[in-house]
């Protein structure tokens, strides 16, 4: 009997927060997860957090903005920005749009908001929550989307992002707190929200993932639902490291040195993969690095295929 795939588990959540060190392939993994979500029958919202056009470019929709648009059957996408999130937040709180828009466009308020600690992050997180939660009031019913895949900021900034609701419930009283409490409950409920950590088999990326996972668990209390190891060199030399000479001549020298490089890289990777297995929680998936020249679409297709196979390291 086939064991349940880590993805089936993952897709039972409402909100997936995809993060990791800069440059590890968060956006690619987010898009692949969104597509796979659709394949398992979900209506998906793929939301970038201030990716400044990167998400849109990869989707072939350079004009992608803060308003969700349909990008494929079952997938809507948007690239959230703090300004629009603030406007929506104010509209929701102040009810009358004209007043909300005037506050949002007030220069002093905008300046304050841009730099004020946690507020930007809070309205962005709030927006993601708003899209993922059950609708209440006269709109009551299911959520707008079955699954929200959030292409979140790099881990350094993502902690601030995840902490935003906690910060408000910890230090504030008053009306903001009520909503922040709801958001906090949502993102810390393992049945509703999961973190997807992306890392490459490099020392710094692994360190950052380990530290982020630790911070997510405590004090934040956000559940890690999946670890994706991206860009892993496919193993070639598993059984063949013994019989190589130390030097060679002529064109064989290049062959030998390329092999020596590959062997050290594979050994180093194996060490880091062991460390990931030991130190990171949750199911883990390894995605191999593509070795042929490829364009964005091919990378995406390959990542989607490999994620679907969901083999473990």
């Amino acid at each position, binding site marked *: 009997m086939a064991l349940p795939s880590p993805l089936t588990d993952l897709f039972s959540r409402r909100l997936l927060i995809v993060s990791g*060190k*800069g*440059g590890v392939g968060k956006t690619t993994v987010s898009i692949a997860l969104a597509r796979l979500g659709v394949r398992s029958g979900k209506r998906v919202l793929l939301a970038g957090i*201030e*990716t400044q056009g*990167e998400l849109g470019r990869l989707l072939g929709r350079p004009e992608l903005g803060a308003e969700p648009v349909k990008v494929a059957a079952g997938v809507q996408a948007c690239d959230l920005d703090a300004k629009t999130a603030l406007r929506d937040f*104010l509209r929701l*709180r*102040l009810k009358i749009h004209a*007043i909300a828009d005037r*506050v949002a466009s007030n*220069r*002093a*308020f905008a*300046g*304050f908001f*841009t*730099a*004020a*600690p*946690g507020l*930007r992050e809070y309205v962005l997180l709030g927006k993601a929550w708003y899209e993922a939660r059950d609708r209440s009031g006269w709109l009551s019913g299911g959520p707008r989307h079955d699954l929200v895949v959030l292409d979140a*900021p*790099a881990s*350094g*900034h993502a902690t601030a992002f995840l902490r935003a609701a906690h*910060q408000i419930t910890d*230090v*504030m*009283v*008053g*009306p*903001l707190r009520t909503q922040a409490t709801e958001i906090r409950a949502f993102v810390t409920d393992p049945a509703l929200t999961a973190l997807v950590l992306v890392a490459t088999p490099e*020392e*710094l*990326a692994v*360190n950052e993932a380990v530290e982020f996972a630790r911070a997510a668990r405590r004090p934040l209390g956000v559940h890690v639902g999946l670890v994706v190891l991206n860009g892993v060199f496919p193993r*070639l*030399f598993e059984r063949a490291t013994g*019989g*190589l*000479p*130390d*030097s*060679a001549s002529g064109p*064989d020298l*290049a*062959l*030998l*040195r*390329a*092999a020596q*490089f*590959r062997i*050290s*890289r594979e050994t*180093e990777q194996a060490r880091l993969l062991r460390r990931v297995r030991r130190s990171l929680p949750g199911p883990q998936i390894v995605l191999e690095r593509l*070795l*042929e*020249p490829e364009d964005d679409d091919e990378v995406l297709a390959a990542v989607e295929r490999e994620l679907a196979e969901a083999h473990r390291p």
Partner: protein
Amino acid sequence: MKQILREARIVLVCGKGGVGKTTLSAAAALQVARTGRRTLVCTIDPARRLANALGISKLADAPRRLPAAALRKAKLPETLELYASMLDTKRVFDEVIQRHAGGPDAAQRILDNPFYQLVSNYLTGSQEYMAVERLHQLHDEGKYECIVLDTPPSRHALDFLEAPRRITEFLESGFLGWILRPTAETGIGFLRGAGRKLISVVTKLLGSDLVHQVSDFFRAFEHMAPGFDERAKQVRELLQSDATAFLAVTTPTPRALAETRILVRRLHESGFPVRGVVFNRVACDWEAAPPRGRSREKPTPLPAELRPLLTTNFQQLQALARRDRAEIEATLAELPPNLVRVLIPDHAVEVRTLAGLARLGRQLCAVGKA
């Protein structure tokens, strides 16, 4: 690159997150120190591995000198003066307040404000801004002949440039503090009216406790704002002067290269000319790579049964090398022609010793064609 590292008094290493800025900053600083200058590398990343490589147990805000034992072990001269420190945003912020608040009482009032405590820890862009403040401080002290500054990791390398503007906007929003004053003592009638309306809206949003803290904070901060502006201006001038060299670091992935092109252009437009671009982790072309030393052993023929495997590997790696090369060529065509370019090969294992950093430093200065 050799000349840049010999002459610059400030080296600013910038680029998007995850391209290897911190390690390259340390390698560049080591290379500067080897020219006999007292050098400080100020990193943002609490990279333990870097601290280990430098022979320092833990990087801290106070600069620490590389111990002689570590230098000996890496076969470097013990007279070499290299210091390393790690930016502690909160601490720099506190020091700025203590120094410029206009008296210990005023300083304490700010430091005790709960809103300040939030701001100093989490203010958006404060890491970037405090790096600028720290640079100003260190340069003023004049203790180091060269400072290598690693810029904060961010999704977008340009954040570093934007930070001062963001902070200024934040301070200017002190206007909000004025509006929020519970007892608006001054003000023209209609402004007060508008203020009252805004105050009621904002109080409704944020709650009155926070509003009080915020308005206290801005009142205490009011007269410090010009100082912030002044120092930001001075740092700007310093960074635009000949004493400063900007280095952009990138990996040869299309996305990193695209950002680097934008970064270099934007820096030029803002009057911060980039002197050099470092392409890091470039797949090695094994056919063209010069032999590494000479082996004493007599070459033995490769085992025939391994040959197919070796050939597959070689072809795969060469394909990567060709792709990197093509990406870099395309990028270079779009960059200003007078930039120094350096290619650093992809190392199988990341640098984790001082000797490794020294090797990387030498590669940085190697004369080669890009």
